[in-house]
């Protein structure tokens, strides 16, 4: 795939159809891949990479990149196209300035998962028939591919591209994922258990803002939590309340806009399952206001900017689930 992508990118650059390419750049190790913009064939040859570790969603970079001079080629995985569509809908990207090549997505690998197996000193990772052969300073290690995939890929919602100018590889389908299982499990706990669970999780937050800054729905010019005039700004969670406040409000702000790309949980240095908050909103929206997938199109009304006269009352919260 990588070779084909490089070739196609070089071709488009040569044609003048685009003047830049956004993709992923090789790192020091097998897994530390950085999103990057390439301007020349040489750069592409040398550093462009697309493999099992290129999980980063590059659509958010297009907020800035699509406003620059000329057209940019973006290789988007299925999940990234949802984000891109949502950004288009919100006028955050200039669609005309982006040439989208849809590429097959994951499952992508999570280096943390490999390390969690006690495998350290990783020098290289090879996928041989869904068995990972990991070369380390302590010798070669083996683990099953599927035990090392990212959580977000394990609950993939769709392998279909919702927007593209051309496709490479085979197109997939919207999947019948089990992504709400964990939300449901939590819903079936008692309030005290849920409280304990979240206190445990959110107390780990160091407020590094990685979840927010990576989120393709969080593209505010200035976040309320960075704005001293908003009255809620803070740099560190000085109190358990602020951890709640930040994550509730952030989830609320992206409710109906979050495409469930899973980047928030992927980047959290403290491994907080933040995507559960977003999925809770998605699940509620689906069950209360009808199925809705943010980013699926660029025209539908976001559920929170819409209403029906016979919507359920807020008291429904009191009536269902476990107290």
């Amino acid at each position, binding site marked *: 795939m990588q070779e084909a992508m490089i070739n196609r990118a070089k071709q488009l650059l040569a044609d003048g159809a685009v003047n830049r390419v956004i993709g992923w750049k090789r790192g020091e190790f097998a897994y530390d891949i950085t999103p990057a913009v390439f301007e020349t064939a040489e750069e592409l040859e040398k550093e462009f990479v697309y493999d099992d570790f290129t999980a980063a969603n590059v659509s958010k970079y297009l907020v800035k990149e699509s406003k620059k001079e000329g057209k940019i080629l973006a290789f988007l995985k299925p999940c990234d196209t949802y984000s891109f569509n949502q950004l288009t809908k919100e006028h955050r990207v200039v669609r005309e300035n982006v040439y989208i090549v849809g590429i097959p997505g994951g499952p992508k690998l999570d280096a943390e998962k490999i390390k969690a197996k006690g495998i350290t000193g990783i020098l290289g990772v090879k996928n041989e028939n869904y068995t990972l052969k990991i070369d380390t300073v302590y010798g070669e290690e083996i683990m099953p591919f599927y035990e090392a995939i990212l959580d977000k890929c394990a609950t993939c919602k769709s392998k279909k591209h919702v927007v593209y100018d051309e496709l490479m590889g085979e197109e997939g389908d919207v999947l019948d994922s089990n992504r709400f299982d964990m939300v449901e499990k939590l819903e079936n706990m008692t309030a005290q258990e849920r409280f304990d669970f979240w206190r445990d999780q959110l107390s780990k937050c160091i407020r590094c803002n990685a979840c927010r800054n990576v989120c393709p729905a969080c593209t505010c010019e200035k976040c309320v939590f960075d704005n001293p005039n908003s009255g*809620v700004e803070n740099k560190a969670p000085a*109190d*358990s*309340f602020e951890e709640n406040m930040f994550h509730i409000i952030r*989830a*609320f702000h992206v409710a109906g806009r979050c495409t469930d790309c899973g980047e928030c949980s992927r980047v959290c240095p403290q491994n907080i399952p933040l995507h559960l908050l977003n999925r809770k909103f998605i699940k509620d929206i689906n069950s209360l206001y009808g199925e809705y997938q943010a980013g699926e199109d660029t025209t539908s009304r976001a559920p*929170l900017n819409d209403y029906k006269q016979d919507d359920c009352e*807020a008291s*429904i919260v009191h009536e269902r689930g476990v107290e």
Partner: protein
Amino acid sequence: MQVNENKEFQPLIVAFCCNWCSYAGADLSGTNRLNYPSNVKIIRVPCSCRVNPMFILRAFQRGADGVILCGCHPGDCHYTSGNYFTRRRMTLLFSMLDFLGIERDRTRVEWVSAAEGAKFAATMNEFTEAVKKLGPNRRLEDLRCRKQ
């Protein structure tokens, strides 16, 4: 919130009322001398859709034990659709608070028209009682703001 060993727990209730229906309904319950507990403190907003979830969390942060939001009945919004948006926003917000294990009875939305002074008072009585039963808000408070 105040707890006194000799006195029973007196919850602090913040009520957001829309100017056109519920605030007028609250006024009417005053005009009709219908009692409800002084625990309830009303904040006037033009429409229930003005209430940002942040205000509700802020109230809990600062020591409120219950927050209730009152607006025009659906279909009667002075601004035609404001309360419909409120309904969705608050349903989702309350559901999220519930998901985080915050007691459900601390939050409520009630539609009170300008003519429903009695309903306003009854609602406030009920809500205060319900919050009283729950005791002080401990799950969504800011310890720094707790009164010694």
